[in-house]
């Protein structure tokens, strides 16, 4: 059974709730390679939780375990009080988990609006016939969903590219569109895989602002991976530090920053 943790109050005064997701003794292997070695940690309601680590530390694998894309050979994944077995991506989405990808997975030929609309798919229930004839439930649903999508477009300030095909957008904007699509699913847990990778300083600041605003405005629990230490420390409430597939630190940014093992990992002390 999952242990319910008490919530806590962050430095800036936000009330964080109990555990949403708990990972227990996760080990993930690809053939002979051990990507994740016996890692446990939890994510609590309303917090911004970061997973950091040097390249190849196993961060993305960890995120894929959380998102249900990889199935660990050992360990348990608990979400909202239930132990989760292997599941299909659409089942994960229905559970209320949405994600973005490190290498952007949008539909290039479709407009920004249509791309974000795809994020609403799990909110649409009209039957095939109704959709095809654009009548009754289908029309009503489309209007409702379009409104929800427009609010996200407004929120992320991408009104000017609403009708632009995604393939024509620069990288920084594609990242924002991806975030928009994830938000469109109204997730309870939002997973961001390197949201700031390849961005310049101003784009990074914009993205940080949006992540904080999403958390603040919708109360979305966010778990993100990032290797830009500065950004992570400013953004997150609690940080898990990974190195070579192991967890070497876990706590508030201040605690993590003071952790000798973390410092060693980042400054490149020789490993045995």
């Amino acid at each position: 059974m999952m242990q319910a943790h008490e919530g806590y109050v962050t430095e800036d005064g936000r009330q964080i709730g109990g555990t949403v997701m708990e990972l227990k003794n996760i080990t993930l292997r690809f053939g002979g390679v051990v990507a994740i070695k016996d890692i446990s940690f939890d994510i609590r309601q309303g917090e911004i939780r970061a997973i950091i680590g040097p390249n190849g530390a196993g961060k993305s694998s960890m995120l894929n375990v959380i998102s249900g894309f990889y199935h660990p050979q050992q360990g348990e994944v608990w979400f909202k009080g239930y132990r989760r077995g292997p599941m299909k991506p659409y089942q994960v989405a229905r559970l209320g988990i949405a994600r973005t990808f490190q290498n952007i997975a949008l539909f290039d030929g479709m407009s920004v609006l249509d791309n974000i609309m795809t994020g609403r798919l799990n909110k649409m229930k009209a039957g095939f016939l109704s959709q095809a004839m654009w009548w009754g439930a289908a029309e009503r649903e489309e209007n409702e969903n379009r409104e929800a999508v427009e609010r996200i477009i407004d929120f992320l300030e991408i009104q000017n590219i609403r009708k632009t095909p995604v393939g024509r957008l620069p990288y920084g904007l594609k990242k924002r569109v991806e975030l928009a699509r994830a938000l469109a699913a109204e997730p309870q847990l939002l997973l961001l895989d390197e949201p700031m990778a390849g961005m310049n300083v101003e784009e990074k600041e914009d993205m940080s602002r949006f992540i904080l605003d999403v958390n603040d405005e919708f109360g979305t629990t966010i778990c993100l991976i990032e290797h830009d230490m500065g950004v992570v420390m400013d953004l997150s409430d609690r940080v898990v530090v990974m190195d070579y597939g192991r967890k070497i630190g876990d706590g508030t940014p201040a605690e993590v920053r003071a952790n000798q093992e973390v410092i060693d990992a980042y400054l490149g002390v020789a490993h045995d």
Partner: protein
Amino acid sequence: MTVQQPPVGELQSIPALLARNVARFGHRPAYREKEYGIWQSWTWAQAAEEIRALALGLLALGVRPGDHLAIIGRNRPAHYWGMIAAQMCGAIPVPLYQDAVAEEMAYVLEHCGARFVLCGDQEQVDKVIEVERSTGALAQIIYTDRRGMRKYDHTRMNALADIQAEGRAAAQRLGPQLDSLIAGLDYDSTCVMLYTSGTTGRPKGVVLSNRNIIETARNTAQFDNLTQTEEIVAYLPMAWVGDFIFSMGQAVWSGFTVNCPEGAHTMMTDMREIGPTYFFAPPRVFEGQLTSVMIRMEDAGRIKRWLFRRGMAVARRAGPALLDGRPVPLGDRLAYGLGKIFVFGPLKNTLGLSRVRVGYTAGEAIGPEIFDFYRSLGINLKQLYGQTEASVFITQQPDGQVRSDTVGVPSPGVEVRIGENGEVYYRSPGTFVEYYKNAESTASTKDPQGWVATGDAGFFEEATGHLRIIDRAKDVGKMADGSMFAPKYVENKLKFYPNILEAVVIGNGREYCTAMINIDLSAVGNWAERNNISYGSYQELAGHPQVYATIKEHVEAVNRSVAEDPMLSGCQIHRFLVLHKELDPDDGEMTRTRKVRRAVISDKFADLVTALYDGSPSIHTRTEVTYEDGRKGQISATLRIEDVQVFGEALQHKVAAE
């Protein structure tokens, strides 16, 4: 239908005009704003209700007559309402430039002693909080957009919608007080205070009374027959007097609709959807549009290009004449009609200019090609000349008397005379009351008879009675040999080339003229793409030998045209360089309205100026740049300096200089 002039004693304030509009056009749209992808609209009756609720809320919040309410945000109905609500309370609205950095904002907030600030969003709130300590007087912050504001300390902060809710709740308690405040407003009450961008020194707070704004709005609305059916798009900074006159003065006077775009980046799309009938844009907007049309035509297929070229040839021949009502041969009329169907109609529609009945441009000189392009499409684009201190209008072009090189005849009610030194003076009902807390500047600008010095040098054309502006009076100088130096005259000629975004001509008191040039990244970048020239940065493109060669051709062409005027032939450019960075208001090199600050530039780029005159072929320089968030950095570059051919008499100077 035109609106009648009011009897004396009535309609002496914006709130009074608002009440009239409710009675007269209550169900017509007053404001529209695109939000969530849909145009939301408010009729005059609905807008008046919103404004009253806001005014009551402000009273409840503690706004007192004489207080200053600063407004910092993009063009939104709520912000225009904020200004009217402040006036209702007897307070003075002070719109600020939303892209101003914190330091500039601090000066203005402190100078006017603003007790209340209405911010558009979190970004503006952050700036205000940052400078709050130094300004002191601030009592309450109000914000329009709630996003990201939850975590802020709200003891002295409120959402605009909450203020309105409070106002509605207090309607019975505070209603009579508000009514008596509104009744107390007259022609001499301050309507608005606007800070001039200040090409030199600190910004000055220009106090404009209800008389200034309402008289100007009435006169100019009659000049162009503006009615309640006009549609305008409010997209220019709210802190700029033009926006206040168009979107507030004339809009409330005539009762027409003010449409606010979704954001700066959606402006073009939104404008196409609205199709304004009355439109103002500074020349650079028209230039930018024309450049993008030309670029896209070059990318178009052969048939389209042929159609465009043929159509535009007809348009240039017949368009302006048709617009002015001059006789046009039947063949051209027919050709123009066809062109309208196949070329100009669709093009105007794409630009969002299909319905424009009256269009104005001002602020800078507009290139004759650009001006003629729009007029030949059948768009009634005219020029006006004005400034903040005049509530905009000094001169404007009447329909049928439009040319690119004049700024028109004095606006109704405005007297204009030319001083002995060539400076333009005016006196009008729109003439400002004073510079706030600056009696000295007021006295030196406005004489006891009410004449105001514009600071521009110009003359009236005898044949037509139209005013022509040469340059800023203080910028007109003398070269070492005593010939006239008019930098802006030459700069404007340079800027008419799409490749040149900005130019700064130097030469006052010197042997010969030189220039620093900014390339236009969109035009030159497109050219580079077309010619397979790769570049990694603005700086690299600016320094490219072929770019230099192109700019050199332009400079020589300008020299040739300058040489034609014997009075100004000394202003030909002997040497130039292409700057490695864009001149930027954030770096203080330009004003917020994008006018170059000569003193700052000659100081900041002193090493470049030296190199322009000491004959060196290149110069290595380091320049400080300011990022959008106010942080500073350094860029360094080696700039080439190019010699240019000069024409006519000026040739001798060059020989002498070498």
